[in-house]
């Protein structure tokens, strides 16, 4: 029986690379693709893949919240999270969210097949850094991470987190309302609650919060050279 895999990443080029890698494996099939978290949840519920591979940094709904939503719908979903960073916080959140696999994007060509194989054999797959955290006692009783434990992120509800991400991505309240099938007034109320809970005064505070808490990811451009700039070619 073929192993069916759903791919979720906002870059089609990355999905092509992942598909090319995975479909070389006999018996594996990419049954669908999604370019954002909301589409990923929709397609997973429709296609019922054996494994779902989600990028952490997707628009509309990030990979961790996608994972949470999938597992709320059906705890049997097996999710591998792809991420550009393996910081302690991201690892904790991926484990909290219920991911069964955690792979660095830079190492995906090396590790992803092993990760999918592990999940196929009902095992988990994490990067060596996660194992280090386990050995360092990170998962001692006092700090046990379970799927049901409240995430380390503060007091925001799941809906508030969704709205925080969409606002931080630059959507207006009206646009957020349209995306989530809510009224603008409801979104505005959520927005006020979020700002109050987190003691924020501006959208900039919200954006910084979203970046720090991996609700959105940004790539830092390289530093410009210290030599004087030459004439503009364009």
């Amino acid at each position: 029986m073929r192993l069916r895999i759903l791919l979720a990443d906002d870059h089609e080029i990355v999905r092509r690379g992942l598909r090319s890698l995975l479909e070389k494996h006999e018996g594996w099939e990419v049954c669908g693709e999604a370019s954002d978290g909301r589409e990923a949840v929709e397609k997973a519920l429709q296609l019922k893949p054996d494994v779902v591979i989600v990028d952490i940094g997707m628009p509309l709904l990030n990979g961790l919240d996608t994972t949470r939503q999938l597992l709320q719908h059906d705890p049997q979903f097996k999710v591998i999270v792809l991420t550009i960073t393996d910081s302690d916080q991201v690892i904790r959140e991926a484990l909290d969210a219920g991911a069964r696999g955690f792979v660095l994007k830079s190492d995906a060509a090396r590790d992803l097949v092993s990760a999918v194989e592990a999940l196929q054999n009902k095992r988990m797959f994490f990067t060596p850094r996660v194992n280090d955290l386990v050995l360092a006692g990170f998962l001692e009783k006092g700090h046990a991470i379970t799927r049901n434990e409240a995430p380390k992120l503060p007091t925001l509800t799941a809906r508030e987190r969704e709205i925080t991400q969409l606002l931080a991505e630059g959507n207006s309240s009206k646009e957020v309302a349209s995306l989530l099938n809510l009224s603008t007034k409801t979104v505005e109320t959520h927005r006020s609650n979020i700002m109050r809970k987190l003691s924020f005064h501006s959208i900039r505070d919200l954006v910084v919060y979203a970046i720090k808490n991996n609700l959105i990811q940004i790539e830092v451009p390289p530093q410009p050279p210290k030599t004087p700039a030459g004439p503009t070619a364009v």
Partner: protein
Amino acid sequence: MTIRILLVDDHPIVRQGLKTLLEGRAGWEVIGEAADGAEAVEKARDLSPDVMVLDVTMPKMNGLEACRLLRRQVPQLEILFVTQHDSPQMMREALDAGARGYVVKSNAARDLLAAVEAVSQHRVFTALNGREVAGLH
């Protein structure tokens, strides 16, 4: 038309995706890959590609630095940036560094083939999100 292409990106999965797209065109061949700017310069000197598809943010040497070096050392090479940075400022820096093309990774599947074709013919090709595509002679 034969185009020999060198792919440069620090993520093997991205290189694989780009390769799959490019090699769908008859006569186009990915002759090599590199994972950082320093390796890109070395391989460009060794392999003499027609076009280099180059990322900006990479370890050891970033794409902008590599591009400036290559402009001096391999002047016949045409460089196309394929990058996450959807920024007019970054695009200007890239063109200043000597690139002929600049496309955003999120639209690479849409823009890459036209961009490679344009730069291989020494035409400028730039495309940012939400802004018009320019294929200038």
